[in-house]
């Protein structure tokens, strides 16, 4: 590896052009560390007064080479990496990864585990959408909703904590199931949450969704048409707000999503208001799914019967030779994995989150590529804000829910 070339860190900082000096067109740096960007990414805007003429993006500020890191780690050690993609809904990323590995090894997952996963993934979706929607509120100047719903997000984090011990970067579950069953304390907290949250959500909805000021600010801000969104590879709530009803949960059901009855909300204009409303309705539908899954939670084991991948209980490791061997093999990443290629996708907080895994039979993936929805749809941002005002650009950014961790991987 040769020495790095001379540093050119300041090369991209825009210099004053003649137009700027004439006082007609100004250059504005939105980011990389700016309260309005909610993450570390830079936008260099060319503005005429309030109006945006063009913009140029720089990404990669928190690039951590996850795809390279994954090529050196055994399968179970990749789960913590996935936490750090979209850190607003880490459980979905974790489960997506577990399911990818299970697809590769052909494991059969008990119905109970699948339902438990659905409950947690939908809780994570609610937490993700709550942040996004309340931050749209903040960017229009309404801080109340944000502080209010964060209490409920806290409750969801407590639920994660009850299952896996962690809150933000959860590393939840294992390949093949969960580390433990839902505890009595989880059931208590969960039922309390389920009772209280719908009221909070409606109250939050009442604050914003028919608020005249909020509507005036968000309607028509950062619109995109359905065709254009598909060209750009939009997925998730942002695509559905543009009127395309593509949802991985329905299109390629995983983890028993086909058992539940729910609606896919779609918007019309693809603007900030529609994105807000789609996320709002998705939270209600998520509650609906959670309710169905919890009421019909099947009896059974909380993990699959795959001793090659699922750690044996600790007591057995100390007292049983076979369990000790399995424990050692799993921890050292010595379990045989079939050769093959799989692509598995789940509906993450921002849409289709995919894992393309190539295995050569070794202890680590040969190649692992993440389909990060943010990275793909953030490209459309300049097109969406051209001709809009600066304040609309800020709103558009928060309503796209661009998460720096997922953007840069």
């Amino acid at each position: 590896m040769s020495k790095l070339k001379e540093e050119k860190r300041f090369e991209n900082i825009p210099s004053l052009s003649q137009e700027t000096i004439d006082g007609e067109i100004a250059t504005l740096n939105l980011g990389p560390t700016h309260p309005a960007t909610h993450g570390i990414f830079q936008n260099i805007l060319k503005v005429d007064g309030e109006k945006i003429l063009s913009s140029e993006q720089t990404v990669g500020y928190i690039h951590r080479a996850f795809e390279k890191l994954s090529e050196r780690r055994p399968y179970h050690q990749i789960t913590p990496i996935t936490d750090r993609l979209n850190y607003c809904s880490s459980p979905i990323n974790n489960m997506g990864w577990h399911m990818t590995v299970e697809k590769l090894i052909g494991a059969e997952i008990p119905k109970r585990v699948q339902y438990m996963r659905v409950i947690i993934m939908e809780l994570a979706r609610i937490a993700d959408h709550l942040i996004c929607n309340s931050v749209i509120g903040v960017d229009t100047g309404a801080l109340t909703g944000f502080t209010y719903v964060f209490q409920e997000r806290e409750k969801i984090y407590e639920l994660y904590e009850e299952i896996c011990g962690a809150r933000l970067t959860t590393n939840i579950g294992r390949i093949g199931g969960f580390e433990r069953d839902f505890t009595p304390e989880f059931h208590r907290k969960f039922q309390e949450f389920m009772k209280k949250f719908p009221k909070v959500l409606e109250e939050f909805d009442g604050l914003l969704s028919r608020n005249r000021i909020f509507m005036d600010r968000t309607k028509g801000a950062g619109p995109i048409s359905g065709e254009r969104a598909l060209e750009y590879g939009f997925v998730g709530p942002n695509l559905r707000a543009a009127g395309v009803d593509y949802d991985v949960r329905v299109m390629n059901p995983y983890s028993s999503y086909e058992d539940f009855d729910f609606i896919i909300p779609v918007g019309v204009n693809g603007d900030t208001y529609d994105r807000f409303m789609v996320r709002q309705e998705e939270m209600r539908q998520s509650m609906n799914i959670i309710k169905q899954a919890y009421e019909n939670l099947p009896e059974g084991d909380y993990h699959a019967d795959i001793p090659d991948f699922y750690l044996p209980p600790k007591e057995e490791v100390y007292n049983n030779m076979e369990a000790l061997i399995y424990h050692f093999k799993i921890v050292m990443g010595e379990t045989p994995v079939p050769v093959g290629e799989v692509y598995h996708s789940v509906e993450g907080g921002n849409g289709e989150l995919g894992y393309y895994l190539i295995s050569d039979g070794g202890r680590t993936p040969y190649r692992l590529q993440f389909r990060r929805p943010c990275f793909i749809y953030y490209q459309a941002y300049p097109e969406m804000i051209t001709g809009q005002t600066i304040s609309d650009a800020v709103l558009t950014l928060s309503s796209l829910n661009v998460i720096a961790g997922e953007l840069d991987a």
Partner: protein
Amino acid sequence: MSKELNPELVLEKLKAQFGESIIKQEEGSDMLTLEVAREKIKEIISWLKNDPELQVSFLTLLGGVHYPKDEGRELAVVYHLHSLIHNFRMRLKVFMSIGQPEVPTITDVYVGANWQERETFDFYGIRFKGHPNLTRILNEDSMDYHPLRKEYHLEDGTREDKDDRFFGR
């Protein structure tokens, strides 16, 4: 949803249209996986998108792979495509030698391929001919190597505690 699209039908139609350019089908994969001629990749993807029957019109993922042992075809670009109308997924691969890592860009078919191609260039050094702005995207501009190629090991070479030999590998 309209009528089902099956892999056989797609393969048959592609073969009828492009003949020799469809090099081979990989067996035992989770979706239809085809290796195609590198020069034709853009035409194939654009045809798949515009064919009224197939409508494979969503680019899910684009990325590179490095196979250092495969001489003459060390680098690959993998395209994941999805027909949302028929809910049909497929994967196209093109291979190339590391000495001449060039492939036509598909940015004029899918505008969303822009950053994904830049990322692939950044990681693997694959040049996409005709790309409007083929520069590094995630790594620093002054970097002079392509880090996801297999010759760059992740771990510090001087460390001994992680030597694979100690674990019988």
